């Protein structure tokens, strides 16, 4: 029981060392290697995911920027269109105004002409009527020679007036 045997001590020490080496070879090392490998893989996956996230964020920013650019472009185009439309409108209005003025002027001119014509016609008519009336009166009293002289005299008078 309490006997100490040198051979047992030495054997146990050797056994312990052998057991340690064996367990290290078949148990600790392989399992630790696998766990490390898994950890490495997980880390690399994590890193990859982070990279992807950054990439996605970049893409998002880019997309947002292009969207904003497009919006700006659209606004600009709209403003341009509105401006040109305004210009066109102004032009049309101006044209119409000019046209109206021209038409008005022409109409005025025509009316004036008509008036002139009518006045001249009326003058002629009045002259004829006067001549007629004078001839009727003269025919009753004197000869046809007197008639002609009188008529010319009247005409002269009327022309002076």
């Amino acid at each position, binding site marked *: *029981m*309490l*006997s*100490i*045997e*040198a*051979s*047992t*001590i*030495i*054997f*146990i*020490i050797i*056994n*312990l060392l*052998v*057991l*340690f080496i*064996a*367990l*290290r070879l*078949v*148990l*600790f090392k*392989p*399992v*630790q*290697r*696998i*766990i490390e*490998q*898994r950890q490495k*893989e997980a880390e690399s996956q994590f890193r990859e995911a982070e990279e992807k996230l950054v990439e996605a964020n970049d893409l998002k920013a880019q997309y947002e920027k292009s969207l904003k650019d497009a919006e700006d472009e659209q606004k600009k185009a709209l403003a341009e269109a509105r401006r040109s439309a305004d210009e066109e409108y102004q032009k049309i209005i101006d044209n119409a105004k000019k046209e109206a003025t021209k038409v008005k002027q022409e109409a005025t001119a025509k009316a004036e002409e008509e008036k002139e014509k009518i006045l001249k016609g009326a003058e002629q008519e009045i002259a004829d009527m006067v001549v007629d009336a004078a001839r009727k009166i003269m025919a009753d009293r004197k000869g046809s020679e007197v008639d002609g002289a009188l008529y010319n005299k009247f005409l002269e008078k009327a022309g002076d007036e």
Partner: protein
Amino acid sequence: MGGISKELMEELNCETVFSFTVAGIKVNVSEAVVVTWIIMAVLILVSAILTANLKVHNISKRQAVAELIVTKLTGMVENMIGPKGKKYVPYLTTVLLYIGLSNTIGLFGFKAPTKDLSVTIALAFMSIMLVEAAGIYERGIKGWLHKFIEPIPVVAPINLLEIVTRPLSLCMRLFGNVLGAFVIMELIKIVVPVILPAVFSCYFDIFDGLLQAYVFVFLTSLYISEAIE
């Protein structure tokens, strides 16, 4: 009573299983050594089976068990020794497995190797060698020697004495616990042969056996972490 004591002594004695002669010296191979071989064989075989064709993904249940055992045991030892003593963890885990299995192998009808004083002496000797070697390795010979006059030179004799008392206490604690547990169990078996031994066996063989393995490794790692800090 005479019969009982004789029986007990017979159970306690570690017999020589066989002996051979090398270069004129008779070498005895005791029972403890043979049981140690059996323990070694079981440990190595089980580990080999558990760790056969390891994979990173889609692990088998076998591999899960192996990983669980390794990570739990090494994690436990690592907690005791601290991050600096990581390289001593595999040895300490081996010792933990060996002592744990030695203490509980009595349940399978073998004579526990730790009941032999020579075995615990060997274990304690290995521990103190590891402690001092770790101290020299981590701090250099000068640093290791300087450790003896810390915190003040007056305590140097006590520190020197610790080289002897530490392994002695390790060895005697383990041996005493296993022997005491064994003797009490035998006595209980003689007094009450049924039921009661099973209950006490749970405590003495399983709980105390594993606890002593833990204590042995815990103290060794404590000494190592003290030596390398």
